[in-house]
């Protein structure tokens, strides 16, 4: 039988568990940030700026003299929340459309592929600016923009995988059996490309996290004094010269988050590969 998800064994290896712990930690921080951050995001504690780590300011101060710990905690909401949602949207949209295109084939596949090709070819800077100008700069618009920018890539990747699998015998057999498109998409093709799709999700998540700082520079979504982690790194870049925590800490935060997500993905149990032909 194919697509027997129930037969997966849910034994997550230790390192995957570590990833899960880190992710849950950041999710908790994102939710609780306004209550645990010691200072408001815009409050100047020490005008001299770029101070070192100390008891008073555990992650140092930023270029304007604001407490970095608070800024990183408050930035978690945006980085973790927006990135997860946007990446989920992008991948869901991309993968669903890709499965559809691969299963149906023919002119539907051609049209979808070309439309998404055109979409990916509009420069994202131009796209971002137009979105700000016409739709304003709310959080929803930010999520939507990020999702739209990365959906075509997810589509392409998923389609390449799906097309490969679609050509295999058991899928032809399923079609001959009279199974409908959605059944084939869900039960025959998808389970056999799960690992690459999840890997792609993990990568896309990293791209979205980093995209956020570029988009907020265009005025999309996050207004000062709040900032996502990527923006925190960017605005404190001058501290790189003396290795200020202001620039290093947010970069480490980003890395821990993205590595955690990818560790989970890497260590999810997959059924012995493509053993669908039972």
């Amino acid at each position: 039988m194919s697509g027997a998800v129930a037969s997966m064994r849910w034994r997550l290896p230790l390192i995957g568990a570590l990833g899960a712990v880190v992710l849950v930690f950041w999710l908790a921080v994102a939710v609780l940030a306004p209550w645990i951050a010691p200072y408001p995001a815009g409050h100047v504690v020490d005008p001299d700026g770029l101070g070192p780590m100390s008891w008073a300011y555990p992650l140092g101060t930023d270029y304007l003299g604001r407490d970095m710990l608070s800024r990183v905690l408050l930035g978690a909401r945006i980085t973790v929340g927006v990135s997860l949602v946007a990446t989920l949207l992008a991948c869901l949209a991309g993968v669903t459309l890709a499965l559809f295109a691969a299963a149906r084939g023919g002119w539907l596949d051609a049209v979808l592929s070309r439309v998404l090709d055109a979409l990916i070819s509009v420069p994202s800077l131009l796209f971002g600016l137009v979105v700000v100008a016409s739709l304003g700069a709310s959080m929803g618009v930010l999520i939507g923009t990020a999702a739209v920018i990365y959906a075509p890539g997810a589509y392409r990747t998923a389609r390449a995988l799906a097309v490969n699998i679609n050509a295999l015998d058991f899928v032809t057999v399923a079609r001959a059996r009279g199974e409908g498109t959605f059944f084939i998409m869900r039960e025959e093709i998808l389970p056999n490309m799960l690992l690459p799709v999840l890997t792609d999700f993990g990568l896309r998540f990293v791209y979205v996290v980093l995209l956020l700082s570029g988009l907020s520079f265009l005025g999309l979504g996050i207004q000062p004094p709040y900032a996502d982690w990527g923006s925190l790194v960017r605005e404190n870049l001058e501290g790189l010269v003396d290795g200020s925590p202001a620039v290093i800490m947010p970069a480490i935060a980003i890395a821990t988050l993205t590595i955690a997500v990818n560790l989970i993905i890497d260590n999810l149990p997959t059924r012995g590969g493509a053993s669908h032909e039972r």
Partner: protein
Amino acid sequence: MDELTRGADGIIRAMLRRGATRRQALGWLGGAGMGLATAGGVLMRAGQALADAPKRGGSIRVAGFSSSTADTVDPARQTLSTDYSRCTMFYNGLTRLDESLTPQPELAETITDDKATVWTFKLRQGVTFHDGKPLTSADVVYSLLRHKDPKVASIAKTLAAQMQEVKATGPNEVQVTLSAPNADFPVVLGTFHFLIIKDGSTDFTTAIGTGPYECKEFTPGVRSIAVRNEQYWKPGKPYLDQIEFFGIPDETARVNALLSGDIQVAGGISARATRQIKAAEGFEVFETKSGGYTDLVIRQDAEPTKNPDLTMALKYLFDREQMRTAIFRGYAVLGNDQPVDPSNRFWCKDIPQRAFDLDKAKFHFQKSGIGTTPLPIVASPAASSSVEMAVLMQDAAQKVGLTLDIKRVPADGYWANSWMKVPLGFGNINPRPSADILLSLFFKSDAPWNESGWKNPQFDQLLLAARSETDLPKRKQMYCDMQSLVHDGCGIGIPLFISILDAHSSKVKGLRPIPTGGLMGYNFAESIWLDA
């Protein structure tokens, strides 16, 4: 070295250059409150500086902050400081502005006026363009009149409008009749757009002027190469053999290029980069105190900002000292909500400095009745450091109960779409060569760039009167009154005057601050030399 000593250095050097004796110089220093030991040090340094005579030769690479296909060597089309730096390498003007923004003769050897309305310029003899053609009055007439031609679309069209008639009254003499008296007309002619080009020039793929360097190569968006004009009419100048000038828009990249030796001069750096430069050996920060500022624009014709109490409350919310340290690392001069800065000869020092006062701010805020309604404040990287100022203001505003909602907009299209169009936003004004130009452009009731939309007839009258007033103390008093009016009632908050900063290798010498802009009012090319 503290402020006093730094300032003294410059003054003593100028005194010595003008022929003061050492005793006179020491006497001045004592009078300035300096102890003998410090005074002696200053004197020694000054002497050494004079001994540091310019050396001829060498080639440098200079990077400005912008480089795009909009780069131009057409004086009428210059918009960026990089354009100014480039054009001053190849052209000269009729006059040139010095450290106190006083016009000095350049291509115009003598300047005479009749009631500040009819100006006669006698041109210097023996000046030739790079292609050998001698400078004549026809070139000057052409260069000045083209600004009025709509097809040329000159940036200086408004300034040029005051020239009612320009004619050559001889092969080396030009007469300009103004539509109204303007004692500052020679200052206007010393600004960048009025550089003199060859009669009939329409093609600006290269630059042919009378300036210190010839244009060997000019590729917009890439670079220009200037080589010494051996026939330059100023003896001994320029000192360098060649200047390669291009743009590195990313500031960090520009600074890194300097620190790694790829370039010798980095034009236009922010206060934040000074950290790195001061920490490195063999590099210096060059500060030019000038009248440029980023201001809070409180529209007087929009709700809710037209409320005078709200306007006042906002001005009291400026923690100027904090901004000076946190944002500008000390490279700024406190401003007093009026646009004439201390380096200007007409600066009025009698106006009491407005302080950071939460009590007064709270009082005015409560009187204004805004309450808890959030007030959007628009800031953009286009108006330098405005986002940081907004952040600091928001923090302070919270303490008196005012909620400021920061709306950061991209630099893209800021000037066309947000500046002066939102009730509360920021502007950024570059230094102008004269108080008259500054006040006329930005504070006159009907000026297109009257940022806050205030209308004060008394101010307008004073402005017009001061322009034609030739009695200096009277003129000063008029400007003082105007500054008071702006300070008290205008919807403009000016917390600081931002110093212009450049950085260079210590081997590059000869830079002296001129308040019209960085790198000696962008006119650095003929004055610097390499002490390799």
